[in-house]
């Protein structure tokens, strides 16, 4: 049957058809839908782990138990999971194990633009890279065959444009994979120095054999072209842009496996053309390898290592022409993402701004607290960095800084890697004020459950980690909960905890305004007779409020009636005590 599937859904279908029965992942754009789609198959046990490292270790354990296993993550998630990655490369697998990593060239929803192919090379693991949904399905299945044939975890590399593009796939049937009984094998699975020393040569030999396999594999295919003036080596979306620009004019070596690279095949291809061009997104990974093989490449073409490629960028480099359109001679104001109307984070960020706090931010919707007019954030690095960064900042700057600095971190991010930072705060005794923005869901990636929500990935009720008890157990004596819609309560909590001579946690608790079960009071009405145009309500950056003819106007299609602006209006012009709707 033919179906239109996202690259991520197709990869999940590949897992299903390959008989995968264990999935553990942490959500991250653009990887999330692989795991969400896999969880819909009743044959697959699927879970959200608290972070990528835990997910990968769980998937390893499952493959050891004899089940084909999977974990998926975004590029920066692989940094978190890099520790197990480099060592399960040494142990190899029992049943097949596949790890998907999704890069985000162009940083549509990420904090950096790293190129995950370097991980395959560094960890000495094979990496397959599909160029559309049909290949995502095919390569996911192939990855299990390779994993078991070569005794290795296999990386499946996605990117935003493959992960989030739908294309046509042919669905197959699931073939159950027989459970491979676990056998004790300390020399293979206990990576202490003596054993690891014996395993390292096995890894190098495996890489040599995989290179041999790559030489003849049909996923690394040379496509003929009419004009041998130029030959193009490419993969993934770059391949699609090359074909879009040049059709079958030039010969193309299309790589489905980007590590290890088929050296003989590349040299042979280079010999068949007058000049060699490598078209790849982000770093010059394949190109550097070609140069190491002594091949001159790319000639007059210059592909940027910054930002994602596009059909026109590739067309220009290869053909020196590309289509153009008519730009409107007009200043078009940008439309950056904003916190939604009714977002529970808004009130809390307003409080932090009013108190002139130094704010250590973290990864999630609340990173939007950095955007004007709230602009209440000083730094954002990676998952969990808010709490640990604040600790270092406070320790290094002395007591005065702790009186005005806070960390903000979401519930899911806190479970991911904030909790270890809080342990450091308690253990090494900084007077940090940590604010957990508990909106009862993993928001930015599209509402995934997490250990604090009491629901698992399959939608079943499960153990709910209690944030207050956890923080107290860590050794934080001052733990309090506030409602971020209540500005006076937020202000009081922030002032009191900043003043305390010990670490404290404020849990700012209210579910995400977009959750289906959340009932809103409905839009408030503004009273133009009372509005004096002071713009106090404009300080919170709510998309539902705008000034028209110097009066605040509420967009009733957006306003949820959260009441935060009502509390800011000294003239009782915004809904007052009564909310309409």
């Amino acid at each position: 049957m033919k179906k239109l599937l996202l690259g991520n859904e197709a990869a999940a279908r590949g897992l299903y058809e390959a008989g995968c029965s264990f999935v553990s992942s942490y959500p991250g754009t653009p990887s999330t839908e692989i795991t969400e789609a896999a969880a819909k198959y009743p044959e697959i046990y699927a879970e959200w782990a608290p972070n990528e490292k835990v997910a990968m270790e769980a998937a390893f354990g499952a493959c050891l138990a004899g089940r084909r296993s999977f974990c998926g993550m975004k590029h920066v998630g692989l940094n978190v999971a890099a520790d197990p990655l480099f060592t399960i490369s040494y142990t190899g697998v029992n049943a097949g194990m596949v790890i998907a990593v999704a890069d985000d060239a162009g940083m549509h929803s990420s904090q950096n633009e790293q190129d995950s192919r370097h991980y395959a090379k560094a960890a000495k693991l094979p990496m397959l890279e599909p160029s559309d949904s049909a290949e995502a399905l095919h390569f996911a299945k192939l990855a299990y065959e390779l994993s078991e044939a070569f005794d290795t975890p296999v990386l499946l590399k996605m990117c935003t444009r493959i992960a989030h593009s739908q294309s046509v796939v042919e669905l197959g049937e699931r073939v159950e994979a027989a459970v491979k009984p676990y056998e004790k094998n300390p020399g293979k699975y206990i990576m202490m120095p003596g054993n690891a020393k014996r395993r390292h040569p096995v890894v190098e030999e495996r890489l040599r054999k995989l290179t041999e396999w790559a030489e003849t594999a049909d996923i690394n295919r040379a496509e003929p072209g009419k004009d041998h003036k130029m030959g193009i080596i490419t993969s993934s979306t770059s391949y699609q842009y090359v074909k879009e620009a040049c059709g079958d004019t030039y010969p193309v070596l299309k790589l489905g496996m980007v590590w290890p690279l088929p050296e003989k095949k590349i040299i042979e291809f280079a010999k068949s053309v007058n000049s060699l061009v490598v078209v790849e997104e982000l770093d010059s990974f394949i190109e550097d390898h070609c140069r190491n093989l002594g091949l001159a490449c790319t000639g007059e073409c210059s592909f940027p290592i910054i930002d994602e490629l596009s059909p026109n960028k590739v067309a220009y480099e290869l053909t020196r022409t590309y289509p153009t359109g008519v730009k409107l001679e007009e200043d078009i104001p940008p439309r950056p993402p904003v916190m939604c109307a009714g977002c529970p984070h808004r009130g809390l960020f307003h409080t932090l701004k009013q108190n002139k706090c130094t704010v250590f931010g973290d990864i999630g919707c609340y990173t939007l607290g950095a955007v004007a007019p709230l602009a209440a954030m000083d730094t954002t690095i990676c998952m969990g960095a808010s709490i640990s960064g604040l600790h270092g900042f406070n320790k290094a700057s002395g007591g005065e800084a702790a009186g005005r600095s806070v960390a903000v971190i979401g519930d899911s991010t806190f479970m991911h890697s904030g909790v270890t930072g809080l342990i450091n705060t308690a253990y090494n005794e900084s007077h940090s004020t940590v604010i957990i923005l508990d909106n009862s869901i993993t928001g930015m990636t599209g509402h995934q459950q997490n250990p604090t929500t009491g629901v698992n990935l399959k939608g079943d009720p499960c153990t709910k980690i209690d944030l207050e008890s956890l923080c107290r157990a860590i050794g934080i004596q001052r733990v309090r909960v506030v409602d971020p819609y209540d500005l006076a309560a937020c202000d009081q909590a922030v002032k009191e905890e900043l003043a305390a001579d010990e670490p404290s946690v404020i849990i700012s608790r209210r579910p995400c305004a977009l959750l289906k079960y959340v009932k809103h009071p409905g839009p408030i009405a503004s009273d133009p007779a009372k509005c004096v145009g002071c713009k106090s309500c404009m300080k919170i950056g709510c998309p539902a409020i705008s000034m028209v003819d110097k009066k605040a106007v509420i967009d009733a299609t957006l306003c949820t009636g959260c009441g935060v602006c009502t509390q800011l209006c000294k003239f009782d012009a915004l809904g007052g005590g009564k909310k309409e709707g």
Partner: protein
Amino acid sequence: METKNIMIVGVGGQGSLLASKLLGRLLLTKGYDIKVSEVHGMSQRGGSVVTYVRYGDKVYSPVIDKGEADFIVSFELLEAARWTEYLKKGGKIVTNTQQINPMPVITGAAAYPENLVEKMAQAGMDVDAFDALSLAEEAGSAKAVNLVLMGRLSRSFYFTEAEWMEAIAQSVPEKFLEMNKRAFALGRGA
């Protein structure tokens, strides 16, 4: 046939994903090769969003670049203006005239440009601008703007109304089906 390119643009949360899903379903039943490209994550939070729909005998790139779009379907007027450079010569813009202020306009840092429909037409673009929001409300829900726009777009395609309705039935939940069909018909007839 040569690949046809449709861009669906709007403000995150306006429901453009349903429009692309509907188009994808319809084109699949017609036996085309198709690619539909979406962006998820942070940009969905009220930011400018774009979905690319491409179909033909063989489609390579999942995205559409400048000067390539046969149609730009816009949920919001400023967004139509933002993406005009992507329109192919002879291409067509189908846009809702609804205006949603972006944050720089809300805060007063920028102004919402005036007379955008006229300016696009003056620049030589074929612009079909109409109030899709009112028609959606007439059909029963402001959220049905996507179906109103698809109805309007459908006038430029050779597919029959029955084929569109079949694709709608496959794309929306049963309880909203009649309302969505009404919205489509209003757009198509408007």
